């Protein structure tokens, strides 16, 4: 079990490494047509910062076209400008807008490929609809007649029959039957999964193929609104809405833009007093350099790439808001089984009681478990055979198997000679043994001590007893079934703690067991003997304290809690109700992925914040490039402020504009990949990012603009 889970995650990671090709010139070129189409003002309007740049570019172009008629560029701030100045500025302003669109187009392009492959699964198939389905008399629709219609004509609530080899025509719940289904079209996972009616594994997705058996499915989604349709819309970014943080950031960026519009608009009349009024192209250049174009250009690409990173990990966020909330999560609710421990327990130790020898206990446990098909049973057999290699499996033939039932809560074997073996829950087996005479007081004491020891250690005690052919019973001892905590979890929880996230383990176990496992796994808290209501109450309590809660779930009874949680990740294997209630779906159905989701959410916010800081910090250098250049003719003394020693006023201004455009392209890979995130306290992360993007943002343009200037100064006239 352990290996399969890991292999699965491995394989899905490998698979996506192929699809997420690295960013390169090819992607840029491919995105160019889309980027050009995005230049339409109606599209640009949604991004106020870049819209200002576009208006500036248009205005400069107009001036560049008309000024040759009036004898070349006008003097700016007392300095004559080279004839190619206005044209160069116009070209680079258009490039600035284009680069911004390119960033968005490239980000969207990565989703498009995924959408294409999904769309292939949506091709119309033939559905065998049962028009008069009778749930009670003919649940398997074996008698009822079916009609063949196109899958696109299916309606909500229709019942269809799907047999081996056919594609499932739409999203639905299995109402009858069991089948193995190939879901690779959606999850990328080639191993088939089992889907059956009733319970938490009844949901099937349209476009997946039934490999064996025959099932009856009730359609739960309207055509065009299926899971696959939603997925396509999401990965294509068509239904992308701005997230709360993005809106707030946009407001700040718009404000900074307005401030600088005011600054630039008022320079003219004020400088006019000293006969130093800059020309319009120079003012537009200053404006574009000052408004936060870098982050304005990359903001939407960052958001799309964030969603994309989730898709790469086979998680579908149904809204960007959920991804952002994932970064804010402060409490993580984790189901014990499947998430913290491997789904099943394993035998760890045999504890003999009442004078029975260990060999005797091992042999009895082995015999009693041979017919037990559960993973627990086979783990007992394996451990017994390791302890006593002489044990063989032939004994099975000599007795009748007594299967486990919920009433008896024990299983075992009845031999032909009347001897019996039983193993099971402590109280039940002890009572069975006591049927033929009360247990000796010291045996009973020993048994209780052993059972308690196992429970306290977080394990499950199984008591083994025998009844000899003469009717005498005795308890042989206890099997210690251990809940095995997944490897590597302790470190991950420690990591979460450093990130300021509290982990709470949810389990149906008793408090004693829960406590022991919680301690072993290193979670911060646990909720024992949890019912769905308890879980709901816990979420509400955490939220009332201002915490943001994330959880995973797959069952229908998880649905209310999934809906209540700020981040609810439904497993793809889960019921439609669960998938409907959560705001993310994990196609791999791996609950530990919740931790990755939190990481991706944080990375998204960090990338946005870092590039904003970088963008704003850039202004310092740009001021020092443009201001002295702008008034150089009128006030030669301002040359002192030309810290970079830029060659001429025209070159300084053009260099700042060029740097401003190029930095967008340089940062596209970072925007798409996301800023590196390592689990650490907020202080450490802040220090690191503030040095790189804050201090770096102040220094980088000084160097960058100087380098551009060295090239530009080679142009004639500059």
């Amino acid at each position: 079990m352990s290996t399969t889970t890991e292999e699965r995650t491995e394989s899905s990671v490998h698979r996506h490494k192929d699809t997420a090709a690295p960013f390169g010139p090819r992607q840029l070129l491919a995105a160019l047509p889309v980027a050009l189409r995005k230049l339409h003002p109606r599209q640009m309007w949604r991004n106020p910062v870049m819209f200002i740049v576009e208006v500036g570019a248009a205005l400069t172009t107009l001036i560049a076209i008309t000024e040759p008629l009036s004898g070349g560029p006008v003097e700016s701030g007392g300095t004559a400008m080279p004839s190619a100045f206005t044209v160069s500025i116009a070209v680079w302003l258009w490039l600035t807008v284009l680069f911004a669109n390119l960033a968005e187009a490239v980000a969207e392009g990565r989703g498009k490929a995924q959408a294409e492959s999904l769309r292939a699964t949506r091709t119309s198939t033939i559905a065998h609809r049962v028009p008069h389905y009778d749930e009670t008399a003919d649940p398997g629709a074996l008698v009822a007649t079916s009609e063949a219609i196109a899958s696109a004509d299916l309606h909500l609530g229709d019942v269809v029959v799907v047999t081996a080899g056919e594609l499932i025509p739409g999203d639905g719940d299995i109402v009858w039957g069991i089948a193995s289904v190939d879901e690779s079209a959606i999850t990328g996972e080639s191993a088939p999964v089992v889907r059956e009616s009733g319970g938490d594994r009844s949901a099937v997705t349209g476009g997946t193929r039934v490999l064996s058996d025959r099932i009856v499915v009730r359609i739960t989604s309207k055509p065009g609104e299926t899971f696959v349709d939603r997925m396509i819309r999401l990965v294509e970014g068509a239904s992308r809405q701005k997230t709360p943080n993005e809106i707030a950031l946009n407001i700040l960026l718009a404000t900074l833009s307005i401030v600088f519009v005011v600054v630039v608009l008022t320079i003219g009349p004020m400088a006019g007093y000293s006969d130093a009024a800059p020309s319009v192209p120079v003012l537009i250049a200053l404006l574009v350099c000052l408004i936060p174009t870098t982050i304005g250009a990359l903001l939407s690409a960052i958001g799309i790439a964030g969603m994309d990173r989730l898709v790469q990990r086979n998680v579908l966020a149904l809204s960007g808001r959920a991804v952002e909330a994932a970064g804010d999560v402060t409490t993580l609710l984790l189901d014990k089984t499947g998430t913290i421990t491997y789904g099943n327990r394993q035998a760890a130790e045999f504890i003999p009681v009442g004078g029975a020898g260990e060999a005797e206990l091992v042999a009895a446990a082995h015999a009693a478990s041979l017919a037990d098909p559960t993973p627990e049973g086979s783990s007992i057999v394996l451990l017994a055979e390791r302890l006593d290699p002489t044990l063989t499996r032939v004994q099975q033939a000599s007795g009748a198997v007594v299967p486990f039932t919920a009433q008896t809560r024990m299983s075992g074997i009845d031999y032909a000679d009347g001897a019996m073996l039983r193993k099971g829950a402590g109280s039940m087996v002890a009572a069975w043994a006591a049927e033929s005479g009360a247990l000796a007081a010291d045996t009973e004491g020993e048994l209780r001590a052993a059972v308690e020891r196992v429970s306290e250690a977080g394990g499950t005690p199984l008591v083994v007893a025998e009844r000899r052919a003469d009717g005498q019973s005795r308890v042989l001892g206890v099997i210690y079934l251990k809940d095995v905590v997944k490897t590597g979890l302790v470190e991950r929880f420690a990591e979460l703690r450093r990130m300021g996230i509290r982990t709470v383990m949810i389990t149906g176990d008793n408090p004693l067991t829960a406590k022991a496992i919680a301690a072993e796994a290193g979670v911060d808290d646990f909720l024992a003997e949890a019912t769905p209501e308890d879980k709901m109450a816990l979420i509400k309590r955490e939220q009332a304290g201002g915490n943001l809660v994330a959880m995973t779930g797959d069952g229908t009874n998880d649905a209310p809690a999934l809906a209540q949680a700020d981040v609810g990740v439904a497993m793809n294997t889960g019921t439609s109700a669960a998938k409907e209630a959560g705001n993310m779906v994990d196609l791999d159905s791996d609950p530990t992925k919740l931790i990755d989701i939190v990481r991706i959410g944080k990375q998204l916010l960090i990338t946005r914040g870092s590039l904003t800081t970088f963008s704003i910090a850039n202004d310092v250098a740009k001021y020092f490039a443009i201001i002295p250049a702008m008034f150089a003719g009128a006030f030669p003394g301002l040359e002192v402020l030309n810290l970079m020693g830029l060659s001429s006023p025209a070159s300084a201004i053009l260099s700042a504009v060029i740097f401003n455009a190029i930095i967008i392209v340089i940062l596209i890979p970072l925007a798409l990949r996301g800023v590196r995130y390592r689990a650490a306290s907020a202080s450490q992360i802040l220090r690191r990012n503030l040095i790189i993007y804050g201090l770096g943002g102040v220094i980088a343009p000084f160097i960058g603009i100087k380098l551009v200037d060295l090239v530009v100064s080679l142009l004639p006239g500059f």
Partner: protein
Amino acid sequence: MPPLVLFALQLLTLALLLAVLYRPLGDYMATVYSSTRHLRVEKVIYRLTGVNQDAEQTWPIYFRSVLAFSAVGILAVYGLQRLQAFLPFALGLPAVSEQLSFNTAISFVTNTNWQSYSPEATMGYSVQLLGLAVQNFLSAAVGIAVAVALVRGLARAASPTLGNFWVDLVRGSLRILLPFAAVAAIVLLAGGVIQNFAGFQDVGTLAGGTQSIPGGPVASQEAIKLLGTNGGGFFNANSAHPFENPTAWVNLVEVLLMLAIPFALPRTFGRMVGDNRQGYAILAAMGTFFVLSVSLLSALELGGRGTAPVLAGGAMEGKEQRFGELGSALFGTTSTLTSTGAVNSMHDSYTALGGGTTMLNMMLGELAPGGVGSGLYGMLVIAILAVFIAGLMVGRTPEYLGKKLGAREIKLASLYILTTPTLVLVGTALSFGIPVIRESVIGTSILNPGLHGFSEVLYAFTSAANNNGSAFAGLTANTPWFNTALGVAMLLGRLLPILFVLALAGSLAAQEKVPVTAGTLPTHRPLFVGLLCGTVVIVSALTYFPVLALGPLAEGLL
């Protein structure tokens, strides 16, 4: 003793006194605004004015109260000036002109104390005492009340209300400003500041001529002028006048008075939000700018280049011998970094870059430490922006003191930082952009043509929009354009930020508090202080880089 050593000792004394005051004064103010008990005299006031002292106000009501109170204040001061001729102790002065009354009323109600007039030749004792001195107390109390409302917004959880403006106003006046001003007045009296109702006295001078020496209740006015960061002088020469600021040590006392409340308010903030370290962080950011600015201005004035300073042996034009360059630089920095605007030397006569520094001080947004109350709320708004920008970098929705900063909070903080630069830049641009006004500005108002003239106009709008009140005194501002435009700048520069701050406070107060975890951005560490300072520079100061380049920088670097 060399002047620099003496100056260092002065600064040290100042720092020591402020440090001593920080905790008791800050804690006392926190108690004043948190207490549920009312003094007997306060109860009488509430009964007479019909205020329900125990009713809490939502932010719109709190703001409407500020608005109503300011409107009444403006009308009262306007009325007093217009009716001056009929008032007792008017020294025989006539009614003040309409536009000057308008400008002065707004100026004193908004805590600006911009004076387009020469007080001794315009205002009698009655207007000075009933109008101006009263507003010196009340406008200061309004500033602190608004700051306290914002602090309550940060401190409270899921609260629809911010406190009661009338209670905050009365307590600020009666429990803080009045007693401290009384003590300060006595100290100033002891230092030689005059206090009488003697009017003008003609005395024979040594040279044989006669001189008219003005008297007046100066010490009482001087105390609140500084303590409430008002800055409106009793005399035209303001604190350069020997009757207002007679000696070097009184000068230091006056600087202390300006800084006492603004520098102690971070403590009040820390106390009220239950974490004194938060107060220290704000204090550290304020202190950093103060120290840097004093050093910069001192260095610029001491190193003043140019023909006149070299011949005179120092940049002493417009400065008083008893203060010297350093005593003037300290006072000038303090006055422009707080919203006081009092002067003990003429900023117009500073070196070009020195004058530019006083302008830059105001352009920072007057938040280091800023005016009483307004400094704290200004810095907190910048802190909110700093947290928002950097907070994203730690991977969480940014939060300050457990309050999430969402679209609404950022919108209000953005509007706040948008207001003053717009007023300053648009006001200055209009002065030069509209031909008729340009004629009047260049022809009548500007004393020094050329770049310095531009600085005079820029200074005026910077001072008015930031509610400072100091001036590049060369500018003749008693013209219809300046009286009106600066009046509007002062009014909008005061009330719009207050509107945004109170709306912000309301939206913060309504929120639940997010618990602090290891993933929370800490806002009390040196790293955050650095971030805060960086945000101030980038958000406030850099906006003005182009205009500074056109005025003081162009002049100073020529």
